[in-house]
């Protein structure tokens, strides 16, 4: 009788745990994509600061793992990138000049006082520039690089 009571208690306790089998479709890790409101840059935007990459897409993503840039206000910059090559991963470092180039075709929806700076040039390499709060997006034919601003402590 006593063992029956124990068994009954065990059954009741066991029945308190519901089935929690993970569905096959839920096995894969899915990250919530952060919604970022991008807009084309204009000459009022400031680029100076320290940035690290948050995403690389396009053909270049196969080999470009991580990028860091430090843009100075006087037009100089230094950068570092972790690149996957034939011999594996390796860092590259750079230093040079950067500049914003204003478009000679003002965007008609912008106020007349604002002319759009749609491209950034880094040592001669041009990219379309998009901005969001504390973020930059550089768009080229070879791929897109997204950066976030990080405060240097």
């Amino acid at each position, binding site marked *: 009788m006593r063992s029956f009571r124990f068994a009954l208690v065990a059954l009741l306790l066991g029945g308190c745990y519901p089935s929690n089998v993970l569905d096959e479709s839920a096995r894969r890790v899915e990250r919530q994509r952060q919604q970022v409101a991008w807009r084309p840059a204009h000459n009022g935007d400031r680029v100076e600061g320290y940035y690290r990459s948050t995403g690389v897409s396009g053909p270049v993503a196969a080999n470009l793992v991580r990028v860091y840039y430090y843009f100075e206000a006087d037009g100089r910059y230094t950068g570092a990138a972790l690149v996957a090559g034939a011999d594996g991963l390796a860092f590259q470092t750079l230093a040079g000049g950067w500049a914003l180039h204003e478009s000679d075709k003002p965007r008609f929806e912008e106020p007349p006082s604002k002319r759009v700076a749609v491209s950034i040039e880094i040592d001669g390499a041009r990219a379309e520039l998009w901005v969001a709060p504390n973020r930059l997006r550089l768009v080229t034919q070879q*791929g897109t690089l997204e950066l976030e601003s990080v405060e240097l402590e």
Partner: protein
Amino acid sequence: MLRKILVGIGVLAVVAAVVLPITALVLLREKIVVEFGPARDAEVSQLALLSDENAQLRSDLAALAEANARNFSTLAEALRGDRRAGEAALSERLDALSRSIDALRGAVEAARIHARVEEDRAASDAANDDDSGNAAAEAAQPASDRDDVPEASTGFLRFDVPQSALDPETPQRFSVIGSLSRVGFDGKSTLHDFTGVTSAVTGNFQLAPNASRTVASGTIVVDVATLRTGVEGRDRDMRTLLKLDEHPELRFTLEKVERRESDEDDAATDRSAVTASGSLSIAGVTHPIQSSVTLEWKGGRRLTIEGEVPVRLTDFSIPPPSQLGFVEMEDEVRIWFSLRARWLGGARDGDHSQ
């Protein structure tokens, strides 16, 4: 008296009225001569008058013509000025339209580029860079399909980024991204079924994703202490059965990969079905296993590996848990895995991933 005076005045008035005109006539008659000329002289006078009038008219006409000429000149000048002003205004409007068209073209191009970038992001994995923990998508297009991409992409913001593509026919090296991977098992018991899962997965391996048969190598390691079933008591019992203190890791050693025909094969998305063979170590006991695996390469540098394999606890000398003889767990459990691995490049000579 008055009557006499008035009579006298009247007589004088009469006399004056009679005598004075007669006297005037007598005195002036000799001075007034009335002459009557012949008809020819009147005609001459009329011609002269007409001539004068004619001259006057001519003078007036000349003045009128001059005034008209001035007016016409002013009008012509005004018309010419209006035309010039109209042409200038039209030219200015055309220039403004041209600028607007250029601006529209720029906006369309910018929108097109923006849309292309968003398509790349939406077509890729939802996962992002693992180390940073930030959310960003990578391109879905396999690098091997890009014929228009130059080999050396030195222009990419001045870094020397090679455009080498993954060759799925030759062995490639990969590293497991733990934060984007899961390993778990599904168990069945008398009362209910349950899942244990962990993301504490590490490992490196190499294989040829599309080769029909290839010698593969590598190791996948799972941290036993991080396995969770959702019930603390059950987790505690599980760690005891798995001999956590002596063997804190589950280890799978990859030895071979073979292609197998499957409906899951899809060349468009670089998806292929393979059978992975190797050995699994649990609680210090090693046992050979074969697992049906799906490999998916979505471009960028990420390989997705998913599959499952049934194992028996008793094969690893693990007695199926039981409670009071009434609640028993089945001997067979299904181990499953969903891994994301970063491509590290082609296999190097003598390289054996550990």
